[in-house]
């Protein structure tokens, strides 16, 4: 420890600097001779106090700094410790406590950058000295800065009306916030609305979901826009301007009461078009409603199949049947604008396209189904009223469920989709219950990690469902023995029995994995957030900030972030709503002052900075012919400052003299 006299004058005219080095237990002190660095720093120009301490971030450590600032009249502060990500804010506060502007402080990372990455004690100590010197040289030029406060708009936008979006919207609305829920499809409910039962409790999906759907519709704080998409997002945390396109459904939402008399009156006497909600297993008319509990309960017209749209020569019996005159063939797309403070993205997932695994015969053999199709088949309100039948109407006697279709495969999707094991177990149970068929599960591992999930697996085992461990190589209709005639045969190594088997079945169910939505990349660009390699939205931190994104004020929830089941989705939606509330209820956000600004008299108006800004924070003042930076939007990336040919853009904390003296410091002796 070296402590210079408190009353020593600074004849060189330099500001009085305090230097502090942390042991971090043995994290730093184990590799770096901290006392030696402290002694060295004491001799650097301007340093009047230099100390080492076991845990600088502890309360006594911070108190020591604050006290020194007062006693030694310190004007600048340098702390050599861990990453600024961890404790920069701690020491800024310590500086403020001592009466010093928080930005008269520079942090030196000698843990992640030195002690943790080196073994040679001598070299690591020398490196710590170099880094300390650089900071001491730089900190002299620091200026007093203040964090700017920006008000936050209290309204929230939730994108996606699946269970995640529904739960997030309801949570916020119940907290008294105004929420706009935007859903691309004609009804909210998402995938969950199509499910029959939910694992592991086997409670009916619709029974637990539809009350929440109608709560959304009737909630005074929620504005529900279905059949709508966000087309543009501008602004910044707390102050987003969002443009939403409301696609025409050719039915006036405010007038339609969902009596469905138009559907009965349609010139098509029988439903004849593939029903998307029922995975194409059922039929609908050109005027339709997805399912009886659709929310909002409003019909819509499909212009692709409606005769009026195709030929212009229809009797329009649907419009005649509607006594509320809700059908409007001339409805146009509407564009709406919204002001919100926070956005929650809950855009969900899509399932793997089973046709990409042609050896499983989806689309080739009528007996091969996807899991979503089976969800509709076993559903009492589905196209077969819950009867498990093949496409030819026959009842299957044996059913094979192939797990991991498209998942855990370097050729398709590398990841485990987390829900397929459990939904396959659920479907196995339901198929056995509805049809009495012999059910085989072909799995690689059973991943039943969740509350009461292993117990559900055990229940399935006891029900006599076959579990054959092995990835099915092929589904074929080529019979090799009499009992395989007319069947679909699955060839698989039963790795637990130790031989290859051919298992004949009537129905094959493909447990397709979960993937990012087809337009996930476009959406992430629109909202200026990141995606991981696999295409799911990137959270700020995989453990500690799972619903935050790298863009402040934009949160993610549900399967758009990664495959997850309903309990996890709901938990995450609640978390995203809470994070949005934290932002809104604070009323304002504090912005880091490391932003750029234009020195107007030096700007030559070349506009080269304008298109470079990744946050669109720079505009051009045509009257003055000068660039203008909105410091609220600026994230301090420094691109404009580096690119400005006249050097008229300055960035706080990264001014030329600060950077140059830091370089001098790190290179000098």
């Amino acid at each position, binding site marked *: 420890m070296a402590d210079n006299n408190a009353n020593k004058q600074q004849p060189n005219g330099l500001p009085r600097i305090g230097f502090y080095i942390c042991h971090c237990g043995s994290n730093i002190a184990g590799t770096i001779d901290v006392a030696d660095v402290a002694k060295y720093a004491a001799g650097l120009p301007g340093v009047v106090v230099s100390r080492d301490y076991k845990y600088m971030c502890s309360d006594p450590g911070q108190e020591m700094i604050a006290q020194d600032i007062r006693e030694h009249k310190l004007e600048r502060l340098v702390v050599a410790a861990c990453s600024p990500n961890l404790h920069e804010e701690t020491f800024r506060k310590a500086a403020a406590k001592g009466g010093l502007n928080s930005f008269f402080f520079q942090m030196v990372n000698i843990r992640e950058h030195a002690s943790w990455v080196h073994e040679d004690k001598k070299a690591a100590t020398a490196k710590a000295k170099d880094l300390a010197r650089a900071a001491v040289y730089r900190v002299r030029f620091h200026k007093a800065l203040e964090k700017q406060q920006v008000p936050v708009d209290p309204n929230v936008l939730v994108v996606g009306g699946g269970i995640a979006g529904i739960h997030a919207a309801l949570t916020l609305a119940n907290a008294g916030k105004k929420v706009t829920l935007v859903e691309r499809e004609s009804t909210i409910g998402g995938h969950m609305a199509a499910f029959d039962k939910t694992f592991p409790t086997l409670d009916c999906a619709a029974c637990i979901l539809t009350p929440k759907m109608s709560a959304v519709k009737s909630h005074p704080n929620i504005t529900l826009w279905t059949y709508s998409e966000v087309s543009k997002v501008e602004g910044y945390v707390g102050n987003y301007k969002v443009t939403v396109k409301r696609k025409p459904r050719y039915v006036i939402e405010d007038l339609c009461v969902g009596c469905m008399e138009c559907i009965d009156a349609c010139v098509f006497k029988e439903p004849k078009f593939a029903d998307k909600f029922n995975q194409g297993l059922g039929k609908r008319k050109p005027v339709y409603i997805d399912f009886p509990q659709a929310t909002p309960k409003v019909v819509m017209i499909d212009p692709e199949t409606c005769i009026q749209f195709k030929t212009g020569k229809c009797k329009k019996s649907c419009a005649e049947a509607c006594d509320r005159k809700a059908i409007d063939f001339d409805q146009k797309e509407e564009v709406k604008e919204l002001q919100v403070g926070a956005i929650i993205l809950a855009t969900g997932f899509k399932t793997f396209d089973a046709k990409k695994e042609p050896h499983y015969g989806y689309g080739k053999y009528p007996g091969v189904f996807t899991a979503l199709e089976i969800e509709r088949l076993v559903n009492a309100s589905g196209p077969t009223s819950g009867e498990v039948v093949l496409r030819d109407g026959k009842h299957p006697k044996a059913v094979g469920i192939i797990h991991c279709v498209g998942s855990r495969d370097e050729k398709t999707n590398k990841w485990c989709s987390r829900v397929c094991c459990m939904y396959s177990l659920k479907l196995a149970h339901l198929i056995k219950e509805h049809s009495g068929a012999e059910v085989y599960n072909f799995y690689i591992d059973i991943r039943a990690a969740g509350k009461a999930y292993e117990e559900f*697996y*055990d229940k399935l*085992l*006891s*029900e*006599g469902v*076959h579990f*054959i*461990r092995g990835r099915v190589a092929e589904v074929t209709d080529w019979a*090799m*023995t009499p*009992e*395989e005639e007319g069947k679909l045969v699955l060839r698989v190594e*039963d790795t*637990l*029995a*130790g*031989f*290859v*088997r*051919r*298992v*004949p079945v009537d129905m094959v169910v493909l447990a397709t994995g979960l993937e990012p939505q087809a337009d996930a990349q476009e959406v992430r660009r629109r909202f200026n957030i990141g995606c991981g390699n696999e295409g799911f939205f990137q959270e700020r931190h995989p453990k500690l900030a799972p619903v935050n994104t790298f863009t402040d004020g934009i949160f993610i929830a549900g399967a758009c972030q990664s495959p997850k089941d309903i309990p996890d989705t709901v938990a995450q939606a609640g978390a995203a709503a809470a994070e949005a509330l934290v932002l809104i209820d604070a009323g304002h956000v504090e912005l880091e002052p490391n932003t750029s600004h234009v020195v107007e008299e030096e700007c030559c108006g070349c506009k080269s900075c304008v298109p470079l800004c990744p946050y669109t924070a720079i505009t051009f003042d045509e009257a003055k012919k000068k660039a203008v930076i909105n410091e609220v939007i600026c994230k301090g990336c420094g691109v404009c400052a580096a690119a400005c040919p006249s050097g008229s853009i300055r960035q706080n904390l990264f001014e030329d003299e600060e950077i140059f003296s830091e370089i001098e410091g790190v290179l000098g002796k």
Partner: protein
Amino acid sequence: MAITQMMKYEADRDADFARWATSQTGGENLRHCIQCGVCSATCPLSLYMDYTPRRLINLAREGFKNEVLSSLTIWLCASCYACRVECPKKIQVTDIMYALKRRAIQEGVYPKRFPIPVLAKEFGRMIFMWGRVNETLLVIDLFLRTNWFKFLSMTGLGLNLMRTGRMSFLPDSIRRKDELRKILNALEADKTEVAK
């Protein structure tokens, strides 16, 4: 080296056998098996087994009757109950082994001249006749039915045992043998009933 087909067709499976196996006393839990293999790992005799207990359970509940009944595994089981102690699903592996042994004897598919089933059968026959086992006769019977040469090489040891009074030629017997036979017959009838 002969090339044989190892792949199994549906015809190689006997669903009735699977149903029978999972309905035996102790076999109810068979379905709960998660194939962790701790039974095999803990078994002191699994190093000689053609199918490990874990694999045998899998084959039994899937109905691969021939593989199960002709395996050495069921005869090598020494009823030490180590697997039962370790099993996370409380499967009565030893009880299942007994059920499979009985079925193998019933169907006559156990390996010929293999001492353990012969011993089991002779043991049962003697109990039925006398209510007691006569070791001398049991051993002689066992060797004559399985391995002649072994019998000759063991003669010295046998004579020594008899001389020291450890083994006797005279069959020991209990009173009221009729009643014991009634009990045994009733049990047997009961078992056949369950098997059906």
